[in-house]
C-alpha cells in the first residue's frame, strides 16, 4: 500500500491543455457509454457509471498525458468505477429484459435485431473480466496490447480471456442455450466476486485514478 504513495511531479497544464482535455473528454463520452452499457447491462446504471467516471477523469486531468489515448485513459477510470460498484453489489442481477428489448430493437439495421438481444443477454452471463476483454477488443476495436494496458494485465491474459469469451458466446448462441439471469445464481455470483478479487488484487486498479 505505502508503495503506491510515491508522487510524481506533474507538469503544470496550460489553459490550452485544459481546453484540449475538455474537448477530448467530450468526444469520448459516447464510447464510455457504449463500454459501460456492455459492462453492466442497464442503460441507466451505465450512464451513472459514466458520469462518475467523467467526474473522476476531470478531477485527475493533470495525470492525463496529452497526446495519449483519451479513450483508453478514461476506460481505465470507468472500469475501476465499475469494479468498485460491482463489489458493492450494485449491479447484482440487474439485467432487465424489457429494457434490453427496448434498446436493442430500435437501432442499427436491416438485419434481424432479435439476435442482438440474445447476444446481449449472453454477453452479460460471461464473467466480467472476459466480458470486458471481449468488449474492448471485439467491440471497441482496441488491440490486444491496448486492452491489456486498460485492464492492467498481460497481453496473453487478454488473448485468453477474449478466446474464452468468444468460445462461450459461440456455444451459447449456436445452441440457443443462454443461461437465464446468471447473476441471480448464488454460485455464479460468488464465482464472479472471487474473480473480481483477483482482478482487484492485480495491477488493474493502479493506472488512472485512485
Amino acid at each position, binding site marked *: 500500500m505505502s508503495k503506491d504513495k510515491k508522487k510524481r511531479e506533474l507538469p503544470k497544464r496550460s489553459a490550452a491543455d485544459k481546453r484540449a482535455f475538455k474537448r477530448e*473528454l467530450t468526444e469520448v463520452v459516447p464510447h464510455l*457509454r457504449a463500454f459501460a452499457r456492455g459492462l453492466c447491462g442497464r442503460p441507466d446504471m451505465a450512464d451513472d457509471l459514466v*458520469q462518475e467516471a467523467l467526474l473522476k477523469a476531470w478531477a485527475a486531468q493533470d495525470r492525463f498525458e496529452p497526446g495519449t489515448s483519451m479513450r483508453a485513459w478514461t476506460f481505465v477510470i470507468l472500469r475501476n468505477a465499475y469494479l468498485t460498484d460491482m463489489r458493492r453489489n450494485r449491479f447484482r442481477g440487474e439485467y432487465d429484459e424489457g429494457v434490453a428489448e427496448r*434498446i436493442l430493437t430500435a*437501432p442499427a*439495421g436491416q438485419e434481424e435485431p432479435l439476435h442482438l438481444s440474445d447476444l446481449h443477454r449472453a454477453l452479460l452471463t460471461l464473467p466480467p473480466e472476459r466480458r470486458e476483454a*471481449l*468488449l474492448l477488443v471485439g467491440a471497441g476495436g482496441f488491440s490486444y496490447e491496448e486492452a491489456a494496458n486498460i485492464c492492467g494485465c498481460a497481453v496473453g491474459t487478454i488473448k485468453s480471456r477474449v478466446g474464452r469469451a468468444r468460445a462461450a458466446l459461440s456455444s451459447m448462441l449456436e445452441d440457443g442455450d443462454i443461461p437465464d439471469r446468471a447473476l441471480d445464481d448464488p454460485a455464479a455470483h460468488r464465482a464472479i466476486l472471487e474473480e473480481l478479487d483477483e482482478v482487484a488484487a492485480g495491477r488493474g486498479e493502479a493506472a488512472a485514478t485512485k
Partner: protein
Amino acid sequence: MATGNTEFMSSSRDEKNKAAKPQDGSGCKPQDPEWASGLKKLYDSVVDEPLPDSFKDLLSKLDEDEGK
C-alpha cells in the same frame, strides 16, 4: 466385429459432419462467428445515440467549476 465397429464410427462421423455444417452460404471466416458483427453493432448503436442532456449539463458544469 472390428468391421462393424468401424462402420458404426464412420456413419456417426458422417452424421456429425452434416450437423456441424450450417447453412454456409456466405464467405464467413471461421474466426468470425455470426455474432461478431452484432457485438460491434451493439457497441456502435450506443456510440451513435444522441447524448442525453444530463451529460451536456455535467460537461458544462465542469467548466464552471474551473472558473473558480
